């Protein structure tokens, strides 16, 4: 059996060439797609709005043309009684991200469906029916108050993570900005069941 005539398919070098070719080709395609994707998800692009979108109303509606839900950005609707310049908004959103990372929010919650599965997804938290009964400015205050002094909701309670007022405002701004990102219809039918 060992002495059978050797064909090229029995030569490891043949398969090595295939492995190298597949890896190089796929890596090059990935690099090209990465360059394009990064361009499309830079803040200020149609898919990912600029950070000062937090000065506007943000909703999530069914778009018949796309046959899916999509964010809808409306007119001015300030939070915390302040109109943020693009620089201020970027700084606030940066701080919001630090709040989210420092408290490891993602290890209980999910963002765009990625994270801990133990607590609700936060992708559209800004327009969740729990909060959207309040108009924009009041909603921001309610959300910030909840983060600082969490109430029991359902079976689970959110822990008190000693979030300060300035941190809570930054995190709320972050959730509002994030809810404006076009995530290809995820989550589907958000709020539809509750008539929102």
């Amino acid at each position: 059996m060992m002495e059978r005539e050797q064909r090229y398919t029995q030569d490891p070098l043949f398969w090595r060439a295939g492995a190298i070719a597949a890896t190089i080709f796929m890596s090059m395609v990935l690099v090209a797609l990465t360059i394009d994707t990064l361009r499309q998800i830079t803040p200020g692009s149609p898919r990912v709005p600029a950070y000062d979108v937090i000065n506007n109303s943000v909703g999530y509606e069914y778009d018949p043309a796309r046959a899916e839900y999509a964010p809808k950005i409306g007119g001015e609707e300030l939070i915390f009684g302040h109109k943020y310049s693009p620089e201020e908004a970027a700084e606030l959103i940066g701080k919001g991200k630090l709040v989210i990372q420092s408290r490891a929010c993602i290890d209980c919650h999910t963002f765009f469906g990625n994270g801990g599965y133990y607590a609700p997804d936060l992708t559209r938290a800004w327009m969740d029916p729990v909060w959207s009964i309040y108009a924009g400015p009041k909603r921001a205050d309610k959300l910030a108050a909840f983060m600082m002094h969490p109430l029991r909701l359902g079976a689970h309670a959110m822990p008190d993570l000693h979030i300060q007022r300035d941190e809570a405002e930054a995190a709320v701004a972050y959730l509002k900005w994030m809810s404006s990102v076009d995530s290809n219809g995820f989550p589907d039918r958000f709020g539809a069941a509750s008539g929102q």
Partner: protein
Amino acid sequence: MYRSQRLGLKYLTASTVMFGAMVAFGLLSSIYYIWPGFLLNVFNFNTAKIVHIDGLVIWLLMGFLGAIYWFLPQELDREVEGIALAEILFWVFCAAVAVVVVVFLFVQYGSATEASMWFINQGRKYVEAPRWAALGIVAVMGVFAYNVLGTTFKARKSTGILTVLMFDLVPLVVLYLDAFPEMRNMSQDLFWWWWLVHLWVEATWEVLIGCIMAWTLIHLVGASRRVVESWLYVEVALVLGTGILGLGHHYFWIGTPRYWFAIGGFFSALEPLPLLGMVVHAVYDAGSNHLRAANRPAFYWTLAEAFGNFIGGGVWGFMMTLPQINLYSHGTQWTASHGHFAFWGAYGCGVIAVLYLALEKGRGYEGLDGRAWKWSFALLNTGMLGMVGALLVAGMDQAFYERAIGGSTWGAFLAMEGRPWFIEGMWGRFAFGLLFACGYAMLVYDLLATRRREATVSEPMAAAGS
């Protein structure tokens, strides 16, 4: 025995300890689901989960390092270059892990400052370890890369397996650098985070475990190097050929363009192929050896690795990867079911196989066979299958009722948590988790018991036949 092999055994021992920590914190995490309010504000769920999933990464990483420090000198018939440095780094690694665990247990979280990122918690899933510790892991990986490359160059020879390993070191080290940035744009953050998580776990690590299993097969059943290396190349071609763009299945919903639906859906549907190839390979090797090997525990764990990788990673992954299903299954307990099964099948079983192989050759014990390893094999695998099944029931319930019908709101999430199938799933996961923990205890008992068997080498062999 080479110094490198002694270091390999140390890494495998540390890895087994981390395995235990991971199991303990996994069990703890599962209690929060069935006992709402458990340890609220004392030790919150997210911290328990962090120790569970970071423990998983460290367990496997230490297992891989142990396996390679074990096989490398045998492959080249010489001591590993820079072994003294590697020995120092082992203790640095262990100390760093211990400090990070203490910080997670007692400090838990900080305020929204850069200092928190550096010293407490980076708050990015799987790479929560503070930056200083992440730098430490880079140093360990750097020295490891130097060990492999330096030894191969000094030996002035290489083998197919070593060539693949050296090639794989590049993404292994470079991708980990992705553990540091803190980007304010969540879309970009997750885009790069998946380069780390997917391209490490579903590509770089798959190749790494491919190299380790190739060595395992050669040492375990005397498989032909020519056949094993050809298979390894085929596997690399398929794993990277499908896995690199299979990355796209994580880019459906994070703000990234729509073309990822087609690319991610197509290539991730192909991702099970190399894993199926490994099953074919393992069955072929098992059959040609008539299911017999001198080291039966290592042999059965190798088979478990092949099947677990294919079913847990391949089939369970495929089940939820197409965007039409993923829209509802993404980010539910269904994902957790796949995650548990895939990590266990692809990597956990492989590390345990190497553990038994190193134990036999390293300590010169022939009498590894006995009842204990069979109990641990059965308990661990039954425990895992039970957890995976329970999480799948809960996850499907969640996908249908919270996601598809409920529309994913907070209200829908909380209502779902009260649904009987979800509650039963969480109890089932806890119960089978306990079984899994018993399997771990049995594994540790068996590993320690081999010392005692040394004196009566022939008896366990006889007992195995009964």
